[in-house]
């Protein structure tokens, strides 16, 4: 199979006493124009997977191959230009934008990354319009924008580098409920339009299943279920996925309490792969 991103047998261990095995034997692939949702509770290793894919974390085992190129951990030197085709949108737009640089200059970083690979030159203002902001935002600073607007700016910056793989690490969890779905759909549309793959990480299943083609559920550093998003949402097979879905409160006004999790429940780690 010739996928855009291939992750095989990925293991990540954080040092400490005892060492923490954050990710254990994760295999996943993302194809061009495909949207893969990665869900799980905090501490299940989903962010570590994302950070390893873009080289921020060094894997202890396994390999990350992007379009035939092995992804090397980020070092002191500049990234190889080919790897700037992977771009990431982080969770907290208050922390991921430089507070003292103008928006235009920050999006310009992405434009330059694309230019060094021989991409077409583009204007920051054009990217701002693509994410639904006014072009004159380029002259302003991050503090002049709301959380949702900042996340759009971070998306514009990532897209300006014309990535072939876009990774969103909980890009919507810092936003208001009413803008979450809109920002997630925007990421999907922009990525798919440009033919890029999207790996979308979130703990919010109700949003992920809207935009993802495939879903991957992680639990304790392993993949416990993967398959078409619709199939998993409608008919989860793994007991962990079932309890995760049952815990999502439904805004129906009927006062239905979400099912409480069994305390300290141990779910089987055998994956259900579809």
């Amino acid at each position, binding site marked *: 199979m010739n996928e855009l991103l291939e992750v095989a047998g990925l293991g990540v261990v954080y040092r400490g006493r005892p060492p923490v095995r954050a990710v254990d034997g994760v295999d996943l692939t993302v194809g061009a124009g495909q949207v893969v949702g990665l869900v799980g*509770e*905090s501490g299940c290793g989903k962010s570590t997977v994302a950070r390893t894919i873009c080289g921020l974390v060094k894997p202890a085992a396994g390999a990350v191959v992007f379009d035939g190129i092995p992804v090397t951990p980020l070092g002191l030197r500049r990234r190889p230009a080919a790897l700037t085709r992977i771009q990431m949108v982080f969770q907290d737009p208050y922390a991921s934008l430089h507070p003292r640089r103008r928006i235009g200059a920050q999006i310009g970083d992405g434009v330059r990354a694309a230019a060094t690979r021989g991409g077409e030159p583009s204007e920051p203002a054009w990217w701002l319009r693509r994410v*639904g902001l006014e072009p004159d935002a380029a002259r302003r600073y991050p503090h002049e924008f*709301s*959380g949702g607007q900042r996340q759009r700016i971070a998306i514009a910056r990532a897209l300006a580098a014309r990535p072939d793989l876009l990774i969103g690490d909980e890009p919507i969890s810092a936003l*208001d*409920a*009413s*803008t*979450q*779905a*809109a920002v*997630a*759909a*925007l990421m*999907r*549309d922009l990525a798919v339009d440009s033919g890029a793959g999207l790996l979308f990480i979130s*703990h919010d*299943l*109700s*949003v992920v299943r*809207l*935009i993802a083609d495939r879903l991957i559920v992680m639990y304790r550093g392993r993949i416990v279920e993967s398959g078409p998003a619709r199939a998993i949402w409608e008919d989860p097979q793994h007991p962990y996925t079932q*309890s*995760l879905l049952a*815990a*999502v*409160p*439904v*805004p*129906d*006004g*009927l*006062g*239905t*309490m*979400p*099912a*409480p*999790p069994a*305390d300290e429940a141990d779910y089987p780690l055998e994956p259900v792969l579809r």
Partner: protein
Amino acid sequence: MSRATLEITGLTLRISSAEILRGVDLSLAAGRIQGLAGESGSGKTMTGLAVLGLLPAGSQVTGSIAYGEQELLALSPRRRNDLRGAEIAMVFQDPSTSLHPMLSVGAQLTDHLRHHLKLDRAASRARAAELLGRVRIADPAAALRRYPHQFSGGQRQRIAIAIALACAPKVLIADEPTTALDVTVQAGVLHLLRDLATEMGLAVLLITHDLGVMSAVADRVAVMRRGEVVENGDRLQVFTEPAHPYTASLLASLPGAAGGVRTLDDVRALREGP
């Protein structure tokens, strides 16, 4: 309807030239959970802080907050301090910052018991252990000697709730108590809040932007926008027949079986809409 425990009428708040609250009316009854929804910046948190008298310096407050026979806004700071923590308590959003990292759980749970209720060391420790058992922390006696970092996020929030409940308050202000938690952990905390309200006759003001949470536990739901309560009614009515267009638009933007957004096209339509 029973007599209100806490009655907020015409509450306004100005900080320098900014109008934060513009005439908020809310009423909390014993054993009932009053939800307060709205987007960030709508003034929900400031309403909660106004009840506790924890507003930032330079705030100008008018209107009335009646707690039984007492008018909270007219009380001396000293009398206010006596009420705060003893009869009106608060749970904050982020348990990792609302607990003191360097003090044991026991120290944080007994401090105000000894101050407000004048309990001695042994009695306050016994009461603290009882409270931890009540919020379902395993092995309460040992937990008292441990520190916040030794607990998970959900456990920390339970501890924060135990601290708030220590002096058997009549009113509990819960400001986004589950926003920082995973859905599975959230389900447990919601059950706890509901049980406590029923058993202890607590009047709870639950502030959250998550309408799913609201639908699960709130008896009445108020919706705020730009410092005003635009809608306040019975849970079922607010969710099924919202009286105010803003509430309807909030509901329409939610993903999931009960929200307005079921497919990706719904999200796109929302974005292109008015």
